[in-house]
């Protein structure tokens, strides 16, 4: 995956590039907003990681400029500003996701991969299929090996999100944000319980568990 990092903190950018390169991605770095814009115009990227506060041109201005030019590359905003209004501003400017600094690296990777995946699914799907698992988004039903699995509405949404990001790690924070739409970290791991309930429904009685726990990161649904 080709990733553009626009970040004025060189050390942070280097650490990020190193981690992403080790994870098998190609990284390009722009040290300020203008450099970032130039890189974005030059090359094809799968995802851009853009810091909000930068010299010359801030992240919001950069993304607004790109969107005006018709560039739809997914953007993950990075920011030390974590308030609701900051996040809303970033998303309104055309950002696709928002991560508050400091972040855990697995969180960053999980979000970048989720963004890149989003781009692939251009057409509207009514049926999701991951291995033996099938989800009918219109009939609101889930089957594994042809057996119907009865899910609560929230469990359905949770599984839908996991299926859309099958094979990727998703973090607890991502689940809380994307499935429950809460943007805070509960002190207790409420998400784990919901996952374990879902797991008991889709994995119990089958020979192979699909819903995996990824240590230090979160969860992953494997085909």
């Amino acid at each position, binding site marked *: 995956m080709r990733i553009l990092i626009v970040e004025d903190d060189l050390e942070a950018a280097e650490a990020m590039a190193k981690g992403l390169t080790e994870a098998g991605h190609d990284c390009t770095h722009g040290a300020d907003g203008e450099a970032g814009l130039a890189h974005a115009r030059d090359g094809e990227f799968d995802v851009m990681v853009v810091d909000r506060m930068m010299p010359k041109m801030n992240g919001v201005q950069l993304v607004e400029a790109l969107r005006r030019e018709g560039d739809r590359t997914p953007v993950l905003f990075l920011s030390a500003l*974590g*308030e*609701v*209004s900051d996040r*809303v501003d970033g998303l309104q400017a055309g950002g696709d996701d928002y991560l*508050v600094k*400091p972040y*855990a690296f697995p969180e960053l990777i999980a979000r970048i991969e989720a963004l890149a995946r989003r781009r692939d699914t251009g057409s509207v799907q009514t049926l999701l299929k991951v291995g033996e698992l099938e989800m009918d988004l219109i009939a609101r039903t889930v089957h594994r090996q042809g057996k119907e699995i009865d899910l609560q509405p*929230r469990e359905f949404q949770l599984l839908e999100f996991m299926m859309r990001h099958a094979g990727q790690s998703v973090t607890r924070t991502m689940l809380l944000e994307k499935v*429950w739409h*809460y*943007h*805070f*970290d*509960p*002190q*207790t791991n*409420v998400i784990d*319980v*919901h996952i*374990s*309930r879902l797991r008991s429904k889709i994995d119990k009685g089958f020979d192979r568990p699909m819903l995996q726990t990824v240590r*230090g990161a979160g969860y992953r649904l494997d085909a």
Partner: protein
Amino acid sequence: MPRIFRTAPFRLTLLFVLLFASAAFAFLAYIYVATAGEATRRTDQEIRREMRSLVDVYDRAGIDAVNQSLIQRAASEKPFLYLLLTKDGRRISGSIEESPVEDFAGQPAWATFQVTDMDAEGREVKHPARGLQQQLHGGEILFVGADAGEDEAYVARVVRALWASVALVVLLGLAGGLLVSRNVSRTMVDLISVVERVRNGEQGVRARVRGARDEFDELAQGVNEMLDRLERSMQGHKHAGDAIAHDLRSPLTRLRARLETAYIDVEAGKGDATEALAQALDDTDGVLKTFGAVLSIARLQAAGQAPNPTLFDPADLAADISELYEPFCEEKDIEYASEIAKDLTVRGNREFLAQALANILDNAVKYTPAGGAIMLRVRRRSSGEVEFSVTDTGPGVPDEDRERVIQRFVRLENSRNEPGAGLGLSLVAAVAEAHGGRLELSEGPGKVGEMGPGLRVAFILPRA
């Protein structure tokens, strides 16, 4: 210029005295005109009456009878001035030498003139006088006048009284104004001195509320409340500084020690670096969470109000949060129940309110042992406020500590080992305050066997 003359009340008084004096002057001027006019009218009436009676005498008995009558009347107590002239203007008789009426054309004519007289000490004085001149049927001309001196003196007395009262009004007004100003000034000086002392860094200074319930009391109260808030916030900041130092230092110290030990062990070739690093990451996350909470509280308190408030049904929020926490409680073998009133509306930032509720529930779950129960209630108080309350059957918080646990970073001694930065309830309190609401802690359902007495945390929002 003495200070009192510069005070706003004194200046106001001056303005009012000026206004009042002008009004009084206009009023008195009217009285003067009315009085003086009345005196003239009375004189005129008397002159007319005298003239009529003399004309009667003339008509009945002729010119000689008039002369006779004039002689008698001139000797009476209040003599009129008389002058009888022939048809062509020669003097026949009378008490004055010539008529003050000029260019007499036969029609009755009025004249104002001066008469010269001697006063008691023999000095020559002039009196104003008025008179009426009329032609008799036989052609003779009769003039009847009257000394207006008496009336004039009366009018003069009225004028003197008028001036005196204007002076009195001004004096009394000034004196009253000074008195009022001094009173008001004293109150203001009190307030000003409070402001000045606070500016010089003094703490705990408060303005005196006199109990008069006037706008000065209101101001004093406002100032006091403002100072209370400022002082609380300053203490909050100071406390936060200390507490951050404390709460960040211990995990940082722990982190450093672990890394150091791990480093030594790994270097000696006997330790497991991975485990030490994982632990270090966990510790760092803890520090970051604390930092995030401190930042949120500081921002909320600095803003003083919740950002982007909307109107929504608290039942939806409670149901959402219940849905998030209920399975978690079941997992811990805690019975979870909710009692949610319908058709309520609250105004606020849904996200912050959700976080506040989540924090309260986090706490409840953390301290409630297996076999216990947690109850979430949403109801409308009789005051119209909307109350979210969470009751648990944990160990509760002793009465004397309840106020304290809401403050930043306070964790009770026996809960030191539980995870969490101790910021949970402080953040909730900050959210409540930012919504114009408050947080109330009270005892839960009481002691049942080993459990209890429990804690009831009520998050109260004002009427939407």
